[in-house]
């Protein structure tokens, strides 16, 4: 349990340490904010609209593929632990599982759904 406690402590100490460092800058260089200084930079001219709009995620088929593969990874972790003990059956079983999923990639690739431009 102390392992996870250490991981949490390291996470929060680094997080808070960085936030404090960032807050410290007001003592070195106070930030100023005027209207022309706030204009987002694209080469010197002011933008037309906000950038935050309905952003067209062109790679959405790939994200769906990822969701399936993320699940696959979850199964692989416990499988890896018992692999050597279980022997050949574990190898065959995971081989089947992965080959089934590889068909998914093959199909996606053939449908050219990984490209977007």
């Amino acid at each position, binding site marked *: 349990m*102390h*392992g996870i406690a*250490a*991981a949490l*402590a*390291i*996470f929060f*100490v*680094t*997080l*808070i*340490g*960085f*936030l404090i*460092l*960032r807050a*410290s*800058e007001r003592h*070195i*260089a106070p*930030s100023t*904010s005027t209207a022309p*200084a*706030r*204009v*987002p*930079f*694209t080469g010197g001219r002011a933008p037309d609209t*906000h*950038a*935050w709009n309905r*952003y067209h*995620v062109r*790679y959405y088929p*790939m*994200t769906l593929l*990822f969701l399936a*593969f*993320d699940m696959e*990874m979850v199964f*692989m*972790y416990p499988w*890896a*632990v*018992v*692999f*050597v*003990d279980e*022997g*050949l059956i574990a*190898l065959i079983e*995971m081989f089947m599982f*992965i080959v089934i999923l*590889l068909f998914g*990639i093959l199909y*996606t*690739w053939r449908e050219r759904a*990984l*490209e*977007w431009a």
Partner: protein
Amino acid sequence: MNALRVVIAVLSVGTVSVAGIYLAAWVDLLVGRAVAGLEVRPLDALIAPLRWGAATALKARTTTERPDAETWALAPALLAALAAVGLAAVPLAPGLLAADVANGIVLFGAAMALVVVAVFLQGWSPNSPLPMIGGYRFIAEGLSYEIPLAVVLIAAALPARSLAIAPIVTSQEHLWNIVRQPLGLPLYLMAGLGLAFWGPLALPGGQDLAGGSSLETSGVSRILWRLAQLLVLVAVAAMGAAVFLGGWLGPLFPGAAWMIVKTVILLVPLIATRHFVARVPTERYVVVSWAILIPLSLLDVFIAGIQALVAAR
């Protein structure tokens, strides 16, 4: 007693992080100067990162018209914190492990999966078009490298029969994973470059976006972002040294010395890629990652599996 261990863990990871970041910045300067045909001055390069930091710290923080100020502030801190957790999962020597968990590669994987969140927030928060494109690019990149990264680490766990890092290191006593799983390290380093959005995989912050995700960032935040990025690189190199290069194993010298040497051996080429390999196009990287790298990483698992079964007989 436990509290003391936690404090020691925090302090040691902090020390290693600072040293690693400094080393990474130094190596980057040296390689860059050598490639540029400038005189390599190692001592000047030692102080140059500090000079850059001082000059940057003296600049005010700029903001944009309607940024998400909180997530903008959070992004570098989150990236650094995740990288530190990733580094904490790596044992320096037998028993010398900050975050000693039974599922070490899952902890590392979880920390590294959240890196996507930090980089996306850095690009999204300023409400500015070019950083936003950079942030979205990193999601495409992140979803593509995440699976090979996890799968090659799983392959390394097979002969160790454990998801903890220390058994993975000791399982390499007779043969390092770099030899018995030859696909593992190259795939891991490619994924690691993506994780650190460095060099050829510096897609969110590429020059084609004029700096991309950190284009609008100035002052101390800019330094923090750079530090966090270098820390990710250090964590990647350290984990690679433990999992593929036999970690602390080695003759004569103490384990920690071997671990440091091996980490540096991986860190230097990782950093040098920035000066030798051009940035790859996002879309083609995604296609190659899914159509080639992921199948290769699954092949790596089978090679590792067969090898582990043969060795167990």
